C-alpha cells in the first residue's frame, strides 16, 4: 500500500513510507516548526505535541505557514 497524506488539499506519496511523526514530516518539508500551525483531520495539533503526533495513512493535514512582517 502506498503511503499517502493529503497536505493542504494535495495528495503526497511517500516512497519510503510515512514520516513517523508530524515533526519528521515538517523536517522533510523544510518547514520551521516555530512558524506553522498544524491541523490533522480538522483538529489543531499544538506545537509542543508535534514530536509525538504519529501520522496515519490518508490523513488530511493542513499546514498554515507564517512569514514575518507587520
Amino acid at each position, binding site marked *: 500500500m502506498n503511503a499517502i497524506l493529503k497536505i493542504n488539499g494535495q495528495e503526497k506519496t511517500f516512497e519510503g513510507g510515512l514520516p513517523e511523526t508530524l515533526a519528521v514530516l515538517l523536517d522533510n518539508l523544510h518547514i520551521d516548526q516555530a512558524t506553522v500551525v498544524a491541523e490533522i483531520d480538522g483538529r489543531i495539533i499544538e*506545537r509542543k505535541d508535534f514530536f509525538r503526533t504519529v501520522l496515519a495513512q490518508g490523513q488530511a493535514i493542513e499546514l498554515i505557514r507564517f512569514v514575518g*512582517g507587520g
Partner: protein
Amino acid sequence: MTPHVFYELKNAVVGIAGLGGLGSNVAVALTRLQVGKLILADFDSVEQSNLNRQNYFADQIGLHKVDATLTNLRRIHPQAGLLGHRVRLTPENIPVIFKDCHVIAECFDRADQKQMIVETVLTRMKDVTVVSVSGLAGYGRSNEIVTRRISDRLILVGDAITGTGPGIPLTAPRVGIAAYHQANAITEILLDERRTLLLKRSV
C-alpha cells in the same frame, strides 16, 4: 448606517494583538467604524523607524505604543470604547486579556509570534475568530494580498510567501493594504457571521 448594523457594531468587542504596522492601522479603521470596544495590547514604544508604516507621529517617539494609540484613537472619537494593556502577550495571558472578544486581530511582526497567538486562540478560546496576516513585505503586487478563510475560526490575509528579509522592506502602502484587508474581514465577521452564530446559539 442602518439600526441593525449600528447595533451589531456597538455590541462588538475586538482584540488587537500588537500595535505596529498592522495593529495601529486596524485600530484606526475599527475606531472610525465605531466598533463598541477595542482591547489593545503591545509591550513596545514608538521609535523613529516605525514612522515609515505605523500610525504614529514624530512627536510620539518614546511614548508607549498603547498610550500613543489611545491618544490617536480618541482624537478620532473622544468617546470610543478602548482598553489598553501594556504587556507582552503569551499563551497564558492571551485568553485572559482578550476574554470578552468576538474577534482577535493578529498584528504581530515575527512569524513565531503569529504562530503562537493563532495556536493559542484556536486551542484555548472557544468561539473566538482570529484574523491573521502572513506575507505583506515589499511593495507592489497589491492584488496578491488576499483574504482567505482557512477554517471556521481562522482567516488569513496576505500573499502567504513574502516575509521581511534582506532587500525586502516593510512599506506603508503594502502593510496598509494588509491592515485594511484585516479590518474589512473583521467588519464582515461582526456584521454577517456573528449574527448567524448568535441565532444558532440561542436555539
